[in-house]
Structures are given as structure tokens and as C-alpha cells.
């Protein structure tokens, strides 16, 4: 599974992209966030307030209970500020 980070989530995690292999009981976006939080202090800092983190699976917005699969591109980022 490829995980991408943008904006201050990337700054906190320290990388823009990483390949992860969460255990089999990590099946939703929310579970992935919880699991990622345990990977490093940077991850913990990035996800410490999950309510303000947005997620996209394969470039479409996804909610916390959306299912994830091994081949997905999962992105985490703050609320967007374009335009």
C-alpha cells in the first residue's frame, strides 16, 4: 500500500510518500490512521488530531470508515486551501 502525505502532514511525518504493509486487521482508513500513529513520533504528531485530517483513496475523497486494500494509493492531508 502506498501512503502519501501533503502540506503539514508531510512536514510532520518527514516523508512525502512511503510503502507500508499494515497487519490484516487494519481494514479501514480510521484503522490505518491509528496504526500509522504508532510508527514514529512524526506520525504520532501528524495524526494527533484525526478530525482535521482528510483522506483520499486512489485520488477520490474517502471517509474514516472507507475500506482499504493492499494495492491502494492512500493520501492524508489537511483541509484544502486552493483557489
Amino acid at each position, binding site marked *: 500500500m502506498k501512503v502519501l502525505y501533503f*502540506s503539514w502532514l508531510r512536514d510532520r511525518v518527514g516523508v512525502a510518500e512511503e510503502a507500508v504493509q499494515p497487519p490484516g486487521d487494519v481494514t479501514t482508513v480510521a484503522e490505518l490512521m491509528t496504526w500509522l500513529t504508532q510508527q514514529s513520533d512524526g506520525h504520532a504528531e501528524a495524526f494527533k488530531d484525526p478530525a482535521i485530517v482528510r483522506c483520499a483513496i486512489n485520488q477520490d475523497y474517502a471517509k474514516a470508515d472507507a475500506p482499504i486494500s493492499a494495492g491502494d494509493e492512500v493520501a492524508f492531508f489537511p483541509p484544502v*486551501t486552493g483557489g
Partner: protein
Amino acid sequence: MIKVQTDDFDVGAELAALSRGRTEVGAVASFIGLVRDVAGPGELSAMTLEHYPGMTERQLAQLEAEALARWPLDKVLIIHRHGRLLPGDQIVLCAATSSHREAAFEACAFLMDWLKTRAPFWKLEEVGGESNWVAARQGDDDAAARWKTDK
């Protein structure tokens, strides 16, 4: 038409291209967003727009399709820049053409409201030697929300 680019754009040429040869179209509504020199904590010296390549184009294309489905439009144009920009620089151009001016106006406002809340861009402001990520505005969510029930 969707364009995501670092280069600046020529508003006159872009709008003219949109209606060229389309003499049944009488209305061209457009919006240009510019970098303001006013940031939360002080005077802004520059702004860097980060985006999510691929997802940006995908979201903007969905936005274009949704506008074309909701209003009797001829064409839709969205150009959004990324990279480092200075105060006064052009960030975004949205336009909608129609034979009905109300449709052109509404669709153009819709495009901007949704773009602000859905297109994956993030602004990093440079103010007094410091760089800060811009927080999302609640007002933008409210503006986008009105299109969920209204036509």
C-alpha cells in the same frame, strides 16, 4: 477544459478561445483569483501552492462535468496554478459560457466554491521570513454547502 500548471495564463486569450466560433453563446462569466499581500499575521512576501498531482486533475474534471450537468452551459474552463507565486500573481481562472447569463454566473460561482473546498491544493505563506500553512476557512465550506440543496 482543465489545466493545472506552474505557468501564468493569458485571461484575454483563454476567454476568447472559449467562445470563438460559438456564436450561439452570448454569456461568458469568469472569475480570476489573485495572490493577496495580506496574510493572517502580516504582509505576505510570497505563497507556494502545493498540490496532489493526478488527484487535482481528477477532482477538477469531476467539477467540470458536474457544472455541465447542472446548468445549460456551452463550456467550462478551470485553470489553476501551483508553485511559488508573488502578491498580485494570478492563481486561478474559472469561466463558464452559456446562452443564459444566469446559468453562466451561477456555474462560475459554483466552480469557485467547490474548487475551494475540493481541489487538493495547499497554500504555504511566507510572512516576515517564516513559512506557514494556511488554515481552511469555514466560510468556504459554507459557500460550497449551498450548492448541495439549491439549484
